[in-house]
């Protein structure tokens, strides 16, 4: 069979993968460097009978996809820093009401308007902590188009499986870069369908009562079960409550369904870790440069390895601890002032072995940048 090979931008990969995952509803507001996602959605969706909405801002965009998800549709919005900031309250609402959806943030330099046309990885902690109150979140990323396709499909799968918003963190480099993509064949990547309740008409349906396996079957708005959805603390019917026991139960459920499943949620790749003395930890487009330098140094006999994280949240603490045990030191390569490095320091036995290798001037972190900083760390001079 012939392969379906494309040479496209990362933003377009995200669109094709979302459609593969079953998306048929998109709402968004233009912002660089994510606008191509909306543009490609506008081209692709009507043709398959899907819905595309250009809303008046990012707040209404995330609200609209949340509403569409409730009627049974797989939905996504896409934005960049300033828009992602606007979405935070409604993100918390989707977490609290357990409505699956995907929010893509093609990161650019911040804070504020920052660097609209330059890449950054400055929103990693915002993805984790941007909305108020205790909560758990899933955030995924990838470093190349083939992986981005896979990870985008997984974002939808995890959103459905755990009834939660999932954040897909791209960055400007990845979003605008063109490279080869082989479109996976139908069924090559499993697609998780919406889990709908089997409770018959007329029988009391509990939208917020988890099954034994922890999953919560849904019922489409407009179908036979009428229930309440609210961002207030609520009971198993979705009715507001101030009963301490119910509140305790709900906040623990919202945290535990994600934080207790770190292993199942962890996606990563590893290169030359077995005997590595120096381990680089990286993610997203920076991992491309990290991989390049690792391969390059290996040729010279230097024992470098790379752990590429694709799941950033919940942070794969166990994985990082296990994989870095024998390393002399760990260098976290990221394009921010040090966001994942703090997480790594928390879990590695001797946090003094952990260094930040970063670049935050709007330029892409190059293999050369990484090499120079590693030499400095090793006390070898540049």
């Amino acid at each position, binding site marked *: 069979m012939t392969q379906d090979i494309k040479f496209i931008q990362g933003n377009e990969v995200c669109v094709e993968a979302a459609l593969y995952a079953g998306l048929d509803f998109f*709402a968004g507001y233009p912002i660089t460097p994510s606008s191509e996602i909306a543009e490609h959605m506008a081209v692709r969706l009507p043709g398959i*009978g899907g819905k595309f909405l250009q*809303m008046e801002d990012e707040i*209404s965009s995330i*609200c609209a996809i949340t*509403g569409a998800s409730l009627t049974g549709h797989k*939905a996504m919005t896409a934005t960049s820093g300033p828009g992602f900031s606007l979405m935070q309250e*409604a993100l918390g609402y989707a977490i609290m009401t357990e409505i699956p959806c995907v929010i893509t943030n093609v990161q650019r330099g911040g804070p504020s308007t920052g660097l609209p046309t330059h890449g950054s990885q400055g929103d990693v902690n915002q993805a984790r902590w941007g909305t108020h109150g205790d909560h758990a979140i899933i955030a995924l990323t990838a470093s190349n188009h083939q992986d981005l396709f896979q990870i985008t499909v997984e974002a939808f799968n995890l959103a459905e499986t755990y009834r939660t918003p999932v954040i897909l963190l791209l960055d400007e480099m990845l979003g605008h870069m063109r490279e080869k993509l082989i479109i996976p064949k139908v069924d090559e990547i499993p697609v998780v369908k919406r889990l709908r309740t089997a409770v018959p008409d007329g029988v009391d349906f509990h939208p917020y009562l988890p099954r034994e396996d922890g999953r919560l079957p849904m019922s489409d708005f*407009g179908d*036979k079960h009428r229930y309440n959805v609210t961002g207030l603390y609520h009971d198993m019917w979705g009715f507001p409550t101030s009963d301490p026991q119910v509140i305790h139960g709900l906040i623990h459920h919202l945290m535990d369904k994600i934080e207790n499943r770190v292993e199942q949620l962890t996606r990563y790749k590893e290169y030359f870790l077995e005997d590595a003395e120096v381990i680089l930890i990286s993610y997203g487009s920076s991992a491309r440069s990290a991989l390049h330098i690792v391969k390059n140094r290996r040729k010279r006999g230097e024992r470098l390895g790379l752990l590429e994280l694709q799941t950033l949240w919940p942070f794969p603490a166990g994985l990082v601890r296990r994989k870095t045990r024998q390393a002399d030191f760990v260098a976290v390569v990221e394009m921010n002032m040090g966001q994942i490095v703090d997480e790594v320091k928390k879990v590695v036995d001797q946090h003094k072995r952990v260094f930040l290798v970063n670049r935050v001037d709007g330029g892409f972190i190059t293999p050369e940048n990484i090499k120079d900083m590693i030499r400095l760390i090793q006390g070898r001079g540049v």
Partner: protein
Amino acid sequence: MAVHNYIRQRFFPHLWCPGCGHGTILNNMLRAVDELGISKNDLVMVSGIGCSSRISGYVDFHSLHTIHGRALAYATGVKMSQPRLNVLIPMGDGDALAIGGNHFIHACRRNMDLTAIIMNNRIYGMTGGQFSPLSGEGILCTTAPQLTIDRSFDTVELALASGASFVARTTSFHVREITKLIARAIQHKGFSVVEILSQCPTHFGRKNKLGDASNMLEFFKKNTTPFGSKAKQDNPELIERGIFRELDIPDYCADYERTIQKAQKGKSS
């Protein structure tokens, strides 16, 4: 069917103060639904945050109680993804026109077939009586101890200027009119706005020495007149009630269906 058939009994008692106008609006809104014979399964109520927005929990429809000011944005997603549903959106004046003002004008412009009901008590009830963009000048409230200097919107003019295809106004005194106008608004294909002047005796009435709920209702009776009446010419101060616009233009979802057809024709040729 009687009104109580549309109510979630287990959700009661409600949280509204005695004399609050919001309950009257709920009652007459349900009569409108009953008159039209809409199945409960075909009705979604979407609301934001405020005393008024609590209405969605009390009704036995699909109910979505969202965040402050964004009800119309959620409703847009519900309707666009499932156009066969009737979507009712009750909102407070602050909810709809302060924090939600941008969504409001764009919903008017877009003309999606949604029914927005603005329960205008000219105050922020839920947060304890701060002024709203509908309070107008010279009002005593917790955030304007020297009286408000902010000028107000006129909801009807704003809706008309923004392109809503159905625009109406009544008050919590004119209960049969509430039922009639909401029924017409639901039937209307396109974005409908029904503003209902409502009373908050707790925060607006008490502070502004307007008496109790019955005095406030009396005010609505005395100071309003049907749209286009002679009384308005004689006394321009009167607030008009009735239907200000009812325009038969294509709604957004119908237009989008044509977009789909165009895209699919383009594909096959």
